[in-house]
């Protein structure tokens, strides 16, 4: 057991820090949350800078155009960019962290050559069309149909919770190609061009008042068969394989951000006098301990995936259960620090509190995560 970084890693961190210090002041101002084209341009610009500095696709394999970094280097990258207040991955999220790795792992040489370089350069953005209104926790029950017609699939149905749909060039789409097969067996993975006729994007307003997501309606959209990654009806496996790219780093930036928020909360409580209330002070102390432990759990999961060569453990579900709970507690504590001020949206923490409500739901509810942990880690039997 060791928590010290190698000389090579420390040098990587130092170079990155230096580069961030030079680069960040030169960035244009951030666009407003509602300015989708502006956000796309901003995110693309940041990705381009990363590309030029050699940080694009850090964790992608070398033969996919990535840098083949170790999970620890990726962890350092995410930690330092968050600490420095660098832009989030934003509209590049799906391309860099999901669709891209899927194509890298399962695509043909031609598909890799077509789709991967523009992602790394920030030239093309992707969105994700997995969830459907009637297929939430039970994702594999998705019903969007694709029927083969010559060299195309003709796709009809609807998708939900699609971020950046308004500005994406491509959508990684899961469709049902064999309605007669067991639900996991009849699914196919397609890259759908977002400018194809028949696509309607409708912004989906969340309880935070913003339209961070969209619904995507598909009415006989034609997607070329050559856009299929993997075999027909093998899309579920294709998608799951991609998760092995995650290597425990999914929440690095968020945990760093939560710890920074907590420190700010403590300072605010000290300033407004609520620090003198032991109930609040001890709550903040406890959160300091919990978030510190979650940072260590991140390092633990990363070093586990490093050992196992990238195959994900079940640590992800354990981490997500603890983290989503701690994050909600963090913003409840923020409300305690603010008192009645927690009712005013001019305080950034109040919006963040609203967003945190999705953490026990999105990407697998806590209930589903507990089932996964109980059945796959602890070996408890499935119900009748």
């Amino acid at each position: 057991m060791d928590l010290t970084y190698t000389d090579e890693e420390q040098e990587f961190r130092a170079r990155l820090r230096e580069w961030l210090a030079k680069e960040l002041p030169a960035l244009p101002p951030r666009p407003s949350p509602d300015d989708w084209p502006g956000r796309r341009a901003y995110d693309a610009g940041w990705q381009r800078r990363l590309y030029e500095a050699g940080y694009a696709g850090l964790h992608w394999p070398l033969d996919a155009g990535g840098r083949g970094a170790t999970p620890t280097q990726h962890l350092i990258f995410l930690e330092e960019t968050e600490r420095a207040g660098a832009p989030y991955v934003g509209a590049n999220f799906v391309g860099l962290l999901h669709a891209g790795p899927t194509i890298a792992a399962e695509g043909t040489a031609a598909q890799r050559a077509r789709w991967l370089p523009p992602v790394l350069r920030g030239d093309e953005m992707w969105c994700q069309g997995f969830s459907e209104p009637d297929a939430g926790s039970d994702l594999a029950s998705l019903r969007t149909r694709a029927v083969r017609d010559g060299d195309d699939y003709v796709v009809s149905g609807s998708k939900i919770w699609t971020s950046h749909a308004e500005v994406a060039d491509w959508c990684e789409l899961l469709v049902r190609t064999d309605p007669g097969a067991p639900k996991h067996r009849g699914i196919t993975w397609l890259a759908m061009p977002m400018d194809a006729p028949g696509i309607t994007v409708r912004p989906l307003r969340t309880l935070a008042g913003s339209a961070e997501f969209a619904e995507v309606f598909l009415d006989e959209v034609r997607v070329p068969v050559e856009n299929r990654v993997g075999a027909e009806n093998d899309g579920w496996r294709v998608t799951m394989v991609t998760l092995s790219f995650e290597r425990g780093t999914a929440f690095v930036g968020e945990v760093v951000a939560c710890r920074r928020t907590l420190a700010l909360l403590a300072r605010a409580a000290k300033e407004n006098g609520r620090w003198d209330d032991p109930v609040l002070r001890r709550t903040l102390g406890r959160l300091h301990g919990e978030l510190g432990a979650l940072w260590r759990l991140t390092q633990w999961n990363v070093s586990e995936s490093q050992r196992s060569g990238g195959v994900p453990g079940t640590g992800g579900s354990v981490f997500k259960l603890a983290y989503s709970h701690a994050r909600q507690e963090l913003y409840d504590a923020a409300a305690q620090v603010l008192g009645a001020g927690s009712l005013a949206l001019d305080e950034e923490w109040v919006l963040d509190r609203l967003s945190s409500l999705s953490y026990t739901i999105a990407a697998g509810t806590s209930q589903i995560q507990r089932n996964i942990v109980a059945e796959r880690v602890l070996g408890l039997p499935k119900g009748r």
Partner: protein
Amino acid sequence: MSGVDFQPTGEQRDLRAGVRDLLAGRYGREALRASVEAGVAVDRRLWRELGGAGFFALRLPEADGGVGLGLPEAVLVFEEAGRALLPGPLVATFLAAGVVPGAAAGTAVVTAFDLDGPLVAHLAEADAVLGAPALPEGEPVRSVDPLTPLHRVARPGRAGPYRDEGALLTAALQLGSALRTLELAVAHARRREQFGQPIGAFQAVKHLCAGMLVRAEVARTAVYAAALTGDGAEIAAAKLLADEAAVQGARDCLQVYGGMGFTWEADVHLHLKRAWVRAEQWRTAAQAEELLAADLLGADG
């Protein structure tokens, strides 16, 4: 391999497995229940055997007859002791190695003023109190834990400079107990049938067990990390989280066991009572939270 390798090394895994085997052979379930029925916490022969195996001298330099290992190895060993519910003032004797004669070899039993207030654990069985010039007089008091006898003393001393390491090793004991009650709960949930299926097939039971695992795994990383850094705030976090994992784990295990968990014959209550004892030792939750709060504010400026 490059990079932060937080996972135990092969040697560390072997050490942990070795201690687990040793304790399984020397202090298995029958030995545990026998000492409960006899009301004897410290078995001097076992204590000397532990000493002979290097349990207490683990951190002493090899030149001084020790094993020459560090806190990371110590927490792995104490995790196993917690799993086996090994009784006695293990932490105090470990900390006394190299300080109190005989502690390292297991020929002396050393306790500590690790509880706030007038109670002292294992006083009648001890040869010394860590950091104290002599053994104080004390009145015996009936203890909630059958294997942690208590005395009330007139003028208790302080744990002083040993508090951080004592808290860390106690957290490791709690971690082992939390992992063990999880194992017990899962085994029971797979075996016990009600309403025509194993109770582990019910979501209510599954989710109790999943919660136990999450708390134990978070506590585990906190304990291991604190052993690596030796940082006071990380130790406080480790104690806080491991205390909760052990206490709540035992309670959830009891809930999974149902009526059977309420019997003296089940080991669940022994884990719960010991976890209650350890939660009061070295650093309580309130102390840990205050220490963490001070660290949080200090860290920020």
